[in-house]
C-alpha cells in the first residue's frame, strides 16, 4: 500500500492496485462519523460502440449504461437496497456521460457495507422478465425529464453542438431505444466494462486504512477474474462545426430559458494539458460571467438575466464545450448583448486584479469542497478516469499565468462554434 500525503491540505490518501487490476483509494477523515464509498466504472452513456482486444466490435442501443445501473440493484435474494437498509446504509447510483457510480454512506457496519457494495456490483443477476419490467420504471424516468425545462434546455444545447459524438444522446436513452435492450446486451456490456481493471473504489470517512484495505483485498482475492485486454471505444469522426446554431423546444415555462455554448475543436491529448485547460477555463468563465463580473451586473440591471444565470465548462479528451445562460425575458437581445460584452473584453484583455480575485476564489472553493466526503469521492474518481490527480488542482491554480487566460479568451469564443438552446412556451414563439 502506498501513501500519498498532501501536507498543505492535511490530507493523506492510501492507495493500492489489487492483483485483479482494481484501484483502491482510502482517505481517512479522523473524527468523521460517516463513511462514504463509491465503486465506479469507467463506462458511461457515450460508450455505445466498443471492442475488447481479441473480440468482436459491438454497437448497443442508447441508454444501456444507465439501464444496466438500474438492473444491478436486483439480486437473487431480492433488492440490494434492502440489505443496505438492514445495515443502516443509504445506497444509490448514477450514470453520467463517462462513468457509472455506485455508492453508499453509513455510520455503522462499514466492513459489511463495503462487502455488500463490492458483491452486488460484481454479481450481475437479471432475468428477461425483470429487464422488461424495468422498461416501465425507466420510461417514467425519461418522461419526468421530458417535462423538466432545465434538463431539456441543457441537453438540447449539447445535442445542437454535436453531429455524431454520443455525448449528444440522452443518458437514459429514449422510450424507443430502451425498448430494444435485451438481457444479452446488458450482460455483454457488463462483462466488458465491469472488469475490476476498468473500475475504482474510493472510501472516505472515519476509517482505519490498513484494516479497510485488508477487507477489500480479501473480498477481491476470493473472486476469480480472467485478465482482460484493453477496451477500444469508437467514435465517428466529429466535424469541427456545430450541428445546429439554434434549437427551440416548446414547453410551458414562465420565462424562456436560454443556454448557449461554444464547442472546442482543438482538444487536449494528455492529462496535464487537460487539467491546465480546465482550470484556465474555469477562471476565465468566472471573470466573464461570475456574479461579481461586470457583464453579470450589467445584464442583471438590464433585466436580461436572473440570479439563476450560470456557467460551466466540460472538458474531455474527445469533447469539450462551455455552457452559459439561464432564464431571460428576451433570448435574442440577451445573445446580442453578451456578444457585445465579450467582444469588448476581448479587445481590452483581462486585467490582473480580476484575474487574481478569481484565482483566489477558485482556490477557496477547492478547499471548501474538501469538507464534503461526497464531493471528494465523486471528484477524485472523475479525475482518476482522466488519469488526473485531483489534488493537483491546487498547484495548477497557483501556477496559472494571466497571459494563458487571455489566450484562452481569444481561442474559446469563436462565434461560428456557438450553439443556442431555447425552451419557451407556445405563446412566446
Amino acid at each position, binding site marked *: 500500500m502506498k501513501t500519498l500525503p498532501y501536507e498543505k491540505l492535511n490530507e493523506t490518501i492510501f492507495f493500492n492496485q489489487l492483483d485483479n487490476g482494481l484501484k483502491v483509494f482510502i482517505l481517512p477523515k479522523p473524527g468523521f462519523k460517516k463513511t462514504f464509498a463509491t465503486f465506479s466504472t469507467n463506462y458511461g452513456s457515450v460508450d455505445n460502440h466498443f471492442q475488447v482486444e481479441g473480440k468482436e466490435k459491438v454497437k448497443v442501443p442508447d441508454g444501456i449504461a444507465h439501464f444496466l445501473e438500474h438492473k444491478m440493484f436486483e439480486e437473487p435474494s431480492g433488492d440490494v437496497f*434492502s440489505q443496505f437498509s438492514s445495515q443502516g446504509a*443509504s445506497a444509490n447510483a448514477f450514470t453520467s456521460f463517462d462513468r457509472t457510480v455506485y455508492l453508499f454512506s453509513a455510520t455503522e457496519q462499514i466492513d459489511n457495507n463495503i462487502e455488500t457494495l463490492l458483491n452486488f456490483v460484481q454479481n450481475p443477476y437479471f432475468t428477461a422478465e425483470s429487464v422488461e419490467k424495468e422498461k*416501465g420504471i425507466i420510461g417514467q424516468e425519461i418522461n419526468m425529464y421530458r417535462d*423538466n425545462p432545465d434538463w431539456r434546455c441543457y441537453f438540447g444545447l449539447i445535442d445542437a453542438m454535436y453531429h455524431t459524438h454520443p455525448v449528444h444522446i440522452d443518458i437514459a436513452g429514449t422510450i424507443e431505444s430502451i425498448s430494444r435492450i435485451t438481457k444479452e446486451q446488458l450482460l455483454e456490456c457488463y462483462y466488458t466494462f465491469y472488469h475490476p481493471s476498468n473500475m475504482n473504489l474510493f472510501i472516505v470517512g472515519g476509517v482505519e486504512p490498513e484494516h479497510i484495505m485488508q477487507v477489500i483485498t480479501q473480498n477481491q482475492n476470493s473472486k476469480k477474474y480472467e485478465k482482460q485486454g484493453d477496451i477500444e471505444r469508437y467514435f465517428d469522426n466529429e466535424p469541427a462545426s456545430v450541428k445546429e446554431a439554434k434549437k427551440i423546444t416548446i414547453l410551458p415555462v*414562465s420565462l424562456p430559458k436560454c443556454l448557449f455554448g461554444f464547442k472546442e475543436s482543438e482538444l487536449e491529448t494528455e492529462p496535464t494539458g487537460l487539467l491546465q485547460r480546465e482550470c484556465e477555463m474555469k477562471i476565465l468563465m468566472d471573470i466573464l460571467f461570475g456574479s461579481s463580473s461586470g457583464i453579470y*451586473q450589467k445584464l442583471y440591471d438590464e433585466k436580461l438575466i436572473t440570479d439563476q444565470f450560470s456557467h460551466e465548462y466540460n472538458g474531455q479528451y474527445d469533447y469539450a464545450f462551455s455552457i452559459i445562460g439561464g432564464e431571460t425575458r428576451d433570448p435574442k437581445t440577451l445573445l446580442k448583448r453578451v456578444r457585445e460584452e465579450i467582444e469588448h473584453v476581448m479587445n481590452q484583455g483581462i486585467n490582473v486584479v480580476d484575474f487574481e480575485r478569481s484565482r483566489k476564489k477558485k482556490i*477557496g472553493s477547492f478547499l471548501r469542497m474538501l469538507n464534503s466526503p461526497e464531493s471528494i469521492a465523486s471528484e477524485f474518481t472523475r479525475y482518476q478516469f482522466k488519469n488526473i490527480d485531483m489534488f493537483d488542482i491546487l498547484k495548477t491554480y497557483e501556477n496559472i499565468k494571466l497571459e494563458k487566460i487571455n489566450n484562452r479568451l481569444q481561442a474559446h469564443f469563436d462565434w461560428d462554434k456557438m450553439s443556442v438552446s431555447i425552451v419557451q412556451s407556445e405563446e412566446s414563439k
Partner: protein
Amino acid sequence: MSKPLFERTKVNQIRLHVLPTKRFKTYAISVYLGSPLSESTVTPFGLIPFVLRRGSMKYPDTKQFREKLDDMYGAGFGFDVVKRGDHQIIKFQMDVINDHFVNEKESLLKQSMQFLGSTITNPYIENDAFSKTYVSAEKNTVQKRIEGLINDKIRYAAERCIQEMCKNEPYRLYALGQISDLQKITSSTLYEEYKRWLRDAVIDIYVVGDTSLNEVQSLIEQYFPIHNKQQTEYEAKERYINSSQKQIKSVVEELDVTQGKLNMGLRANVTYSDTEYPTALMYNGILGSFPHSKLFVNVREKESLAYYSSSRFEGHKGIITIHSGIEINNYDKAVEIIKKQIDDLRNGVINDIELTHTKAMISNQLQEIQDSAFEMIGFDFNNILSGKERTSEELIQEINEVNVQAISAFAEKVDLETIYFLRDKKGES
C-alpha cells in the same frame, strides 16, 4: 459518544450558539431571523434579503459587495426564505476558509462577521429608504421566481397540494409571498418593514469552526448593533386540527405535461415538540422516505407505476406529503395502491424488516448530521424553533423504542385530507 455541544449566550437579545471544533476546513456561519407567517408581511419580508444582498453602507455597489466575498477566498454567501410550521424564516449563511490554510492578514472569521453584520444591520440606504434601483430590480427577481414555480412540475405539484390542503391556514402562503402584494411595495415602505422586521424577528446566530464563544461574542457585539429588540423567543405554535373534515378533497389540474404528478396531503397532528414525534418519523420512514419503504416497493418496484414515489414529514407543521410521478392513465390504480399503504400502516401491517430497516436508516441519518457543520446547525435550530431540547442521541434512543403498536396507534390519527393530480390537457375533464 461525543455530543456536539453548542455553547450559548445572548448579545443584544440575539441568541448566540457556538460550536468550537477543528474538524472542518472552514467556519460555518448561519443567521436565522424568524417571524410569524402572515399574509400582510410574508411578501415584504421575503423580499428583504434579496435587497440586502445588493449592497450595504460599507459596500454600496453590488459589484463591490460581491468582490469582497471573492477576496475572502471566494467565501460562500447565500440566503434562503423558508416556511417552518407557521413561521417564515430568513436564513443567511456564510462558509469561509479557516485562516490556517491560507495566508491572510486579518482573520477571515472576523471579516465574515463584519460582512454579515453590515449586510443585515447596516444596509445601503439613500434618503431614508432603500435604493429605488435595487428594490425595483429585486421585485422583478422575486416575481420571476414566484412565476417560475410552474417550471419545475415536481415542486409545483407539491406546493399546489399544500395550498389546497391548508387553504384556511397561514401555511398555504408561499414562502416568498404573492405577486399582487409585491407590486405595492416601494423602496420607502420596504425600509419601514425592514426596521420592523429587524426589531421583531427572533434572531439566532450560529458559528461552527475553530473559534470560541468569547471570540464570537465580541464579534457580534461589534458588528451586530441591533437595539431595542422585542421578541427573543418563538411563540408556542398554534394548532390546526382539521378533524371535522372527513371527506377527502380531490383536485385535478391540467397543464401541458407528459407525466402526471400525484400528490397527497395527510394531517399528522404531531409536531417536533411532541412526545410522539419519533413515532411520526418512523411512520413516515416506513411509508415513504427510503427505498425499502412501502411506497417505493409497492408503487415503483412491484407495479412499475412510477420512477419516484415517496413521502415527506414537515415536523414543524405536522403534515405528511406524498409525491409521485405516474403515467396519467394509471391515476386510479396508483391512488388505490397508495391508499392501501396508508391503510396497512393503520392496521399495523408492518413487518419486522420495515421496522428494523427504518430504525437503522433514521439512526444513520441522525449520526451523519455530525459530519456537516451546516447540518448540525440545522438540527440544533429545529430544537430552538420548537422549544424542545432533544439531542440526536436522545432521538435515536427514542426511535429505537418505537414499536408497531405505537405506529398503528399514531396512524389511526393520521388523516388523508387532500389528493392533488396534475395531468395533461387531453383529459375528458
